[in-house]
């Protein structure tokens, strides 16, 4: 089946998300849409999948124009989609999730899931998925959930499968397995639209690459094109991803974590016996695939977790068991991983958000009486300093772009003297210009002699910022390695394999930096 998008344009109000995009997906081909976050890839695919109606343009299947009024039409036409955030009902079984929307029934609408179970087993055997049709989805690991999503599409006889950033939540090993599955599907005649911004994967698996930037197709490339070329096409200019930063001058170790264990509500040890230190003037980057205990680690430090044991000391003082307020008062600056949920109050003004954790401290408050004038003054200063693009200090923070929201959070946390700075996913969903700016601020904070801890699932960000790299896997510390450790070593560590356990341990510092530089286009 040949799929063609012709002149697809999608507007949201005044915002142009897709601008006359033309893409042709040939039958039995893996076609990659490459573009940085916010380039408009997902919007395009949502148009193709019938979730959005295109403002202009048409979709053709085997040369015939089609129009989708909803995902149902798209599925009927043979298009399946695996969303970046899985579209699975957690409290349903695999079979129920697969059947949903196209349920086999007996008389009078009674469900008959036996047929669905059979199909699931069939597909599962064919591709080696190992999925139990009667397992509850919420009990399955993400990797398996993703397979359920693929099964969902295959059960519906998808001829074209859209995979939207499928590797974001996978370990390198799981990623490799997925790439294998994609090749198998291709061999079976399924076309795949692979959406990604990770150049390595794209190069490895694609037949054709279309690069999208700011809602437009800026060109197409062969998988053999060099990483740097692809990166600059994607970003729109020559990319230099090495941050110019002076070597760290670590001083005394003021932040110590010992035997830290966090037990989640469901009883799992989500952080399991962690011990590490951070010195003043150094950046420790915590790497790992999403969901391996990073969130709980930062929350434990901040005092947001209930069941925590071990010890966390800053400047010799124990932080464990103290309230969030006390921890912040001890000089901890914290940039949470999800700014919309944890970092900002979207309906509050920028000015209010800039004092969200300082509102009761002088000069912003005397006793319980706040000083709006001071808060406004502070806002103006921070907005200038961090170049926050906002209509005014009184604009609601939720209306700003992601990068500007992140600047607000960062500006707030860096606006007071810190004894420890923790930033979780500091540049997630942030445009390239802001990334550079934010990275420079983080390094500047380090250079002022603050211990800095960066948590990032983007390996490139880790490699760029870190003075030392700690890798978490299933809540445990796999190891701490120096900056400059190779991507392959880190990749294995992220899968839980310590370098010492390898047959030929890689000397950590022996990998030349330029290699990672060239590959570094990945995360932008």
């Amino acid at each position: 089946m040949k799929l063609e998008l012709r002149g697809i344009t999608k507007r949201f109000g005044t915002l142009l998300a897709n601008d006359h995009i033309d893409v042709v997906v040939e039958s039995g081909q893996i076609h990659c849409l490459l573009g940085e976050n916010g380039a408009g890839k997902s919007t395009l695919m949502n148009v193709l999948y019938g979730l959005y109606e295109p403002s202009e343009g048409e979709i053709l299947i085997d040369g015939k124009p089609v129009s989708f009024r909803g995902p149902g039409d798209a599925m009927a036409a043979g298009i399946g989609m695996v969303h970046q955030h899985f579209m699975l009902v957690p409290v349903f079984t695999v079979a129920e999730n697969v059947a949903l929307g196209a349920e086999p029934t007996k008389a009078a609408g009674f469900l008959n899931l036996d047929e669905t179970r059979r199909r699931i087993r069939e597909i599962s055997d064919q591709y080696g998925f190992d999925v139990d049709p009667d397992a509850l989805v919420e009990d399955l690991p993400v990797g398996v959930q993703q397979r359920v999503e693929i099964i969902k599409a295959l059960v519906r006889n998808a001829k074209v499968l859209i995979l939207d950033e499928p590797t974001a939540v996978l370990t390198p090993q799981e990623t490799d397995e997925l790439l294998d599955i994609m090749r198998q599907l291709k061999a079976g005649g399924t076309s795949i639209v692979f959406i990604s911004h990770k150049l390595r994967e794209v190069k490895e698996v694609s037949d054709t690459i279309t690069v999208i930037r700011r809602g437009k197709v800026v060109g197409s490339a062969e998988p053999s094109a060099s990483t740097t070329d692809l990166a600059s096409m994607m970003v729109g200019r020559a990319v230099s991803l090495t941050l110019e930063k002076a070597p760290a001058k670590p001083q005394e170790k003021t932040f110590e974590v010992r035997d830290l264990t966090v037990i989640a509500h469901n009883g799992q040890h989500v952080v399991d016996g962690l011990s590490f230190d951070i010195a003043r003037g150094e950046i420790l980057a915590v790497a790992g695939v999403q969901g391996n205990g990073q969130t709980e680690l930062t929350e434990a430090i901040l005092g947001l977790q209930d069941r925590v044991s071990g010890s966390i000391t800053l400047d010799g003082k124990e932080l464990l068991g103290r309230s969030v307020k006390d921890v912040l008062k001890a000089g901890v600056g914290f940039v949470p991983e999800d700014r919309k949920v944890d970092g900002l109050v979207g309906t509050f003004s920028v000015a209010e958000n800039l004092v969200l954790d300082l509102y009761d401290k002088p000069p912003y408050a005397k006793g319980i009486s706040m000083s709006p004038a001071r808060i406004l003054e502070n806002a103006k200063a921070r907005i200038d300093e961090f170049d926050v693009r906002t209509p005014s200090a009184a604009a609601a923070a939720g209306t700003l772009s992601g990068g500007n929201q992140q600047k607000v959070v960062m500006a707030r946390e860096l606006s007071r003297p810190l004894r420890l700075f923790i930033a979780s996913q500091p540049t997630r969903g942030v445009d390239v210009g802001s990334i550079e700016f934010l990275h420079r601020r983080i390094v500047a904070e380090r250079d002022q002699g603050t211990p800095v801890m960066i948590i990032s699932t983007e390996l490139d960000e880790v490699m760029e910022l870190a003075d030392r790299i700690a890798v978490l896997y299933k809540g445990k510390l796999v190891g701490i390695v120096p900056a400059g450790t190779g991507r392959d070593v880190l990749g294995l560590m992220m899968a839980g394999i310590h370098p010492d356990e390898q047959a030929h341990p890689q000397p950590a510092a022996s990998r030349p930096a330029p290699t990672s530089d060239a590959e570094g286009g990945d995360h932008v």
Partner: protein
Amino acid sequence: MSEQHPPKRPAGDEQGDTQPAKPHQPNLAAEETAAVVSVDTAGGAMGPSAVPASAQSGQLPGGPDTLLRKIFTGSGMVSVLAVFLALVIGGLLIASTDTRVASTASYFFARPTDFLTAVWNAATRSYIALFQGAVFNPRGNSVAAQFAPFMETLTIATPLITAGLGVALAFRAGLFNIGAQGQIIVAGILAAWVGFALHLPLGLHLLLVLVAGIVGGALWGGLVGVLKARTGAHEVILTIMFNYIALYFLRYLLNTPAFQRPGESNPISPILDPSAVYPQIFGSQYRLHLGFILAIGATVLVWWLLNRSTVGFEFRAVGANPKAAQTAGINVSRSTILVMAIAGGLAGMSGVAQVAGTEKVLTDGVAATYGFDAITVALLGRSTPWGTFAAGLLFGAFRAGAVQMQIQTGTPIDIVLVVQSLIVLFIAAPPLVRAVFGLNPRRKKPARAAKSTKAATTGGAA
């Protein structure tokens, strides 16, 4: 209102790909609503708040959200139109049951003007009576009598305002305080008891009555806060149940000799001591009492609390995004308990206004329906202190006028409930009101496409 994690947002919500998280919908007004909801709900992570998103931020000097701008950009206009629309529908309801309308309808096709005149007359007659009973009665014998209705409006508005402030304050902290009714009752019990059972010097006695009432309401509200904070029980269920518990407790007390008049067994308490009641502000000819002045004071206090104090900042932050508030070091449990206690205390002032001001005795009708009306008052006032004050006055006027309306025209008081609830419904759905009045911005088709390239590049890259 789920506090559970919502299902994951659709693809790329935070990654920026679908940053313009507006739906494709047939009209701009709906998109606008959706955009506001999106800001309001942290991108869908929470249910929509009771407080309009535009009202959740504090009022900073120099902000763009001036009253003038509000009026011109619509929310003030929508409020006026909503009230108008509700009155029209109420008028039609009145007319539909009017006998004259019914008789003219039988020959509608012969003489439609008769019918229309009858409809107009039925509705306006009731509303004129309502107005005369609420604001100004030109047929009064003296100036004092002419203004008596207005004084009555203020009297009835008093408990509405304070209880409304309690509900509004809780709304701002993200809590649905359906429990003003029970809080008024408990406050009434304590205040009345202090008022008739203790005999204290002038001044001190009234002060103690006031304190007892506020403490009573604060305890009843605070208890909900404690249960909510400690067990996670939902405050809507808790407050509804607490209303009934308070009511039955009051009925029980009124059946015990301690709360009955000596030698009688009617469920009515002794009259409060003269030293325990609010002085009447404009003399004995009007029922208006000191409680109204206190209500103004409470409004000022709540305004200051919300917009100028750290406590209010915490309330608002917890209400708008509890997770961000907690991450910023705000103790959410403490805020929940505190805000419910203060809300209860404010409702308690209404209880005091009832027993020490208007009624001077305790009966099982002490709270009337003030506690429930307070919810609509707070909603109409968009949960801002002065908005609530104004809404309290409006609904007070409806209540006061409705009594006169029923006497003069036989229109049942219930019409006020209809109008009141319609107003709140319409105000909550501005696109509906605009659609009714044909004010929805026309959807401009490709006219604006040309300039959007630049917009896309700045917005899309987020």
